[in-house]
């Protein structure tokens, strides 16, 4: 066994990546001392639900809840790691504790990128963010959302559904960078039909005003709102690893098994792993799970473990539309319709990239992911 026997494993991070890694360590046969460190006081939850069902005013506050952890390890919640001592194999926590390990999983995820340090700039990343935004929406304040990606659009959709007047500030057409022009067009139309105001700009900044914050666009126009939410990307939480030499351009680079070294795995939103299109962070639900399974197995079994073979799965729900897509986005050009047709109604669509890889997408169409995956591989 590389690096000696495995008696103690520490998983730093209790999101879906850390949780899956902990479960998988057990399934791979690790029966030693397992400790999971979670920065938030909450048990692990489903992050995708925060900007979807949880934001809606249905009274259901449980859509993010996950089944309890089954790994039987010690969970230290509300505690943050502040350092990693590679030479002595210790994880240092913010309460001064030093946890010894034989193997460690780095899974601290990422946080919202911000445009200012102003407290009026809200973001939606964690459960507390979502609950606080949800309670604000009860008063139906006018809302400005800065960010035209999937998260910004989901937030805008939730705020509209709550009865707020909502302005979305986007660099160019919303979703066009992430989805490509065809699907962006479908979603923008649905958003406009429901009353979303979209302001396109080259750039936006957030600055202080008396009693709050405001958004200033590149042409000098100013938007003021009682509630201001930004959704402009994420930043990996790797500062606690700064002096380890493991951080490269903000992320942790791993091999195709999710390992940094034989005794260290990194999984989830902070990990950049090899893909056919180069080394990438793919901060998505199923990506975090697949990475965690592969890496935890590799930590226990060493070189016998199978490498990651990952095809992105993405879904969103917004403005009355639901989209599921398998394959690499964004998409150029018009789709081939496997079922349904243009116009924003239920449709099963397929695109081919220039390199021959395919993408299958289901719009308001119930279909199992395995079928969607098969469809993405079939030439149109």
């Amino acid at each position: 066994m590389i690096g000696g026997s495995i008696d103690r494993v520490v998983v730093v991070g209790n999101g879906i990546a850390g949780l899956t890694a902990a479960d998988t360590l057990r399934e791979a046969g690790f029966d030693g001392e397992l400790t999971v460190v979670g920065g938030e006081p909450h048990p692990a939850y489903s992050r995708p639900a925060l900007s979807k069902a949880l934001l809606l005013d249905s009274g259901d506050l449980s859509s993010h809840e996950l089944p309890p952890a089954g790994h039987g390890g010690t969970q230290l919640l509300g505690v943050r790691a502040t350092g990693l001592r590679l030479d002595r194999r210790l994880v240092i926590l913010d309460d001064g504790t030093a946890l010894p390990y034989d193997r460690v999983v780095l899974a601290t995820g990422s946080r919202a990128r911000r445009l200012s340090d102003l407290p009026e700039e809200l973001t939606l990343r964690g459960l507390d963010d979502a609950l606080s935004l949800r309670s604000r929406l009860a008063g139906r304040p006018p809302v400005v959302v800065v960010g035209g990606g999937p998260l910004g659009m989901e937030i805008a959709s939730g705020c509209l559904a709550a009865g707020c007047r909502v302005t979305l500030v986007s660099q160019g057409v919303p979703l066009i960078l992430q989805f490509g022009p065809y699907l962006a067009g479908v979603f923008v139309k649905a958003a406009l039909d429901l009353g979303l105001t979209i302001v396109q700009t080259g750039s936006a900044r957030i600055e202080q005003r008396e009693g709050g914050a405001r958004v200033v666009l590149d042409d000098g126009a100013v938007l003021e709102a009682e509630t201001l939410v930004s959704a402009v990307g994420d930043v990996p939480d790797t500062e606690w690893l700064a002096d380890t030499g493991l951080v490269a351009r903000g992320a942790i680079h791993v091999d195709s098994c999710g390992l940094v070294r034989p005794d260290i795995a990194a999984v989830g939103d902070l990990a950049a792993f090899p893909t056919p299109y180069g080394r990438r962070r793919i901060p998505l639900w199923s990506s975090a799970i697949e990475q965690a399974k592969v890496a935890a197995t590799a930590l226990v079994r060493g070189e016998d473990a199978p490498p990651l073979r990952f095809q992105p799965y993405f879904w969103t729900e917004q403005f009355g539309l639901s989209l599921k897509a398998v394959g690499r986005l964004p998409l150029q050009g018009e789709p081939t319709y496997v079922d349904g047709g243009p116009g924003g109604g239920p449709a099963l669509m397929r695109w081919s990239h220039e390199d021959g890889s395919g993408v299958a997408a289901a719009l308001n169409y119930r279909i199992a992911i395995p079928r969607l995956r098969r469809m993405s591989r079939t030439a149109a």
Partner: protein
Amino acid sequence: MKIVLDRPRCEGHGLCEEAAPQLMHLDDEGELVLDREEVGEADAALAHAAVRMCPVAALRVA
């Protein structure tokens, strides 16, 4: 152990089917069908893996 489905929560992603095709599948309508609700020790890990994949926690083991 038993796999329990909370049907109203299920959004039909089918990530569970991908994790444990021996235990469950989505039918032609996209509705989840539990092919085996009672699972033995041998398939416990499989059942847990399927439950863990669900982003809306529509599945649990009891």
